[in-house]
């Protein structure tokens, strides 16, 4: 974990309101693993005040890439940065995906901009296993990185709410279909996307006894475990109340889906 000033090497508008930034940060990339994130200072003007967390989208020898969608002031300002501008970033942060080298096909399930960390994960996993990704989005323009996954030789399936690309439905529909017809049991599942999707994903994984890791989001302040602002409710049999609040920024953002208490 270090704090560095990283130059923006590349900026690309990958889809309407979606941007990819490649950052010059070799000292971060050398320690980074899929599922981790960086914490970005967007402005020195105190508006917005706090850093913004973004998953590591790609790890290269020169640095890292992030992929983000404009949802508010911070991401809007970030989208206005230009190639050559510098960003004050901290990373790599958090506990990423646990990657076990096993023979099974890995299934990645992405909702919207949830593909961001899954690309770094796919690049890692495909070195030793078959990877499939199921991408869900509201509509066709929100399906991002499709060609990039295909270029890695990864099988991509798509679901959109309006049926404008792939099946009409959501990513977890694709997952259920796949698991129902798949011969091999207990395929490892990796998910990232909005909370309601992750919840359904966890239930499906539970039903098929598949190990399932999901990357959570939470409003963050420090990003390093100091403020306790970003917790998730996690099962803890040793606690009298059977739960504890764990920090998404250091104990996650990737958690075992079975641990999460959804209410």
């Amino acid at each position, binding site marked *: *974990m*270090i*704090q560095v000033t990283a130059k923006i090497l590349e900026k690309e508008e990958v889809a309407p309101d979606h941007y990819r930034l490649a950052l010059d940060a070799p000292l971060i990339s050398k320690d980074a693993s899929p599922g981790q994130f960086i914490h970005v*200072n967007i402005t020195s003007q*105190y*508006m*917005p*005040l*706090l*850093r913004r967390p973004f998953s590591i989208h790609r790890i290269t020898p020169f640095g890292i890439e992030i992929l983000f969608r404009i949802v508010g002031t911070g991401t809007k300002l970030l989208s206005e940065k230009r190639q050559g501008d510098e960003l*004050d970033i*901290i990373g790599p942060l958090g506990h990423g995906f646990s990657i076990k080298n096993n023979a099974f096909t890995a299934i990645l399930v992405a909702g919207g901009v949830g593909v961001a960390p899954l690309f770094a994960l796919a690049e890692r996993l495909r070195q030793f296993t078959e990877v499939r990704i199921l991408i869900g989005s509201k509509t066709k323009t929100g399906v991002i990185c499709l060609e990039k996954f295909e270029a890695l030789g990864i099988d991509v399936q798509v679901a959109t709410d309006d049926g404008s690309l792939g099946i009409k439905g959501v990513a977890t529909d694709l997952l259920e279909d796949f698991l129902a017809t798949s011969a091999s049991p207990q395929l490892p599942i990796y998910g990232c996307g909005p909370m309601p999707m992750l919840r359904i994903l966890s239930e499906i994984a539970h039903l098929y006894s598949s190990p399932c890791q999901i990357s959570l989001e*939470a*409003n*963050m*302040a*420090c*990003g*390093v*475990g*100091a*403020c*306790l*602002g*970003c*917790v*998730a*409710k996690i099962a803890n049999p040793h606690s009298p*109340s059977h*739960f*504890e*609040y764990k920090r998404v920024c*250091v104990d996650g953002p990737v958690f075992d889906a079975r641990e999460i208490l959804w209410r």
Partner: protein
Amino acid sequence: MQTIEPDISVNIGKLKLKNPVLCASGCFGYGQEYAELVDLSMLGGIILKGITLKERHGNPMPRIVETSAGMLNSVGLQNMGLSRFLREKLPLLSNIPTNVIANICGETPEEYATIAKELSNKDSIAALEINISCPNVSHGGMLFGQDMMLTFEVVNLVRKQTSLPLIVKLSPNVTDIASIARAAVDGGADAVSLINTLLGMAMNIKTKKPRLANITGGLSGPAIKPVALRMVWEVCKAINVPVIGQGGIMTWEDSLEFLLVGATAVCIGTANFVNPKASMEIVQGIKDYMKQHKMIELKAIRM
């Protein structure tokens, strides 16, 4: 010409800090969290996350929401409780190369006293800060720090249990902060620190629900600096023990404003989240300022 290295050490009761910059309670964990980003040995000290007698889960999520130049938090004092703290965290504190101050919080004066007593003979704890912005369960939820008598009572009881330097952390949600500060000093405080967060709220107009699960939370950050500075100024005029100023300090210039109105030291809270190097930069900024103005002692800064 040779420039003399200015002496920026300060005393908080019998505790000597090598410089007047502390990291604030709740904003710096137990120190280790920031150890890879901050050279802890450069700091005057760090104040630990608040400790309560029993373990506390804290509040549900969301706990944090941003506001204009500020943030609201409602962590709800999540912590592992005194006994796990003593077992799991205390041993690690001896590795921290600066003064470690424990921050304590109770539901009754007796709880404060118990925690204070337990922490008082521990080598790695240099001072106690008692957070009186905690609801007094036997007084219908009024905060200790909102009442002179309650403030006096809790400080006085803690004072009897400890010979460590005792800092009383005041709540700003009061009509007359100077009178509360006086009560703390009368109760035996060696120093007071202020301000804790201002009570605030934010609504989500889409869901029609409060943005914080706990409805209200504490406002911190640059937005509150003017209120903090005014209260520090009022308290500095009212009492004769050291005052530790805080609330929205982001830069060394901000910290100087507090030192100018009479604060002996400053605490850096929310700024750590925005820029973990803030506390180090503030130490350096104060030193550079003094060198530039050829000041050799910190009190030369005062207005």
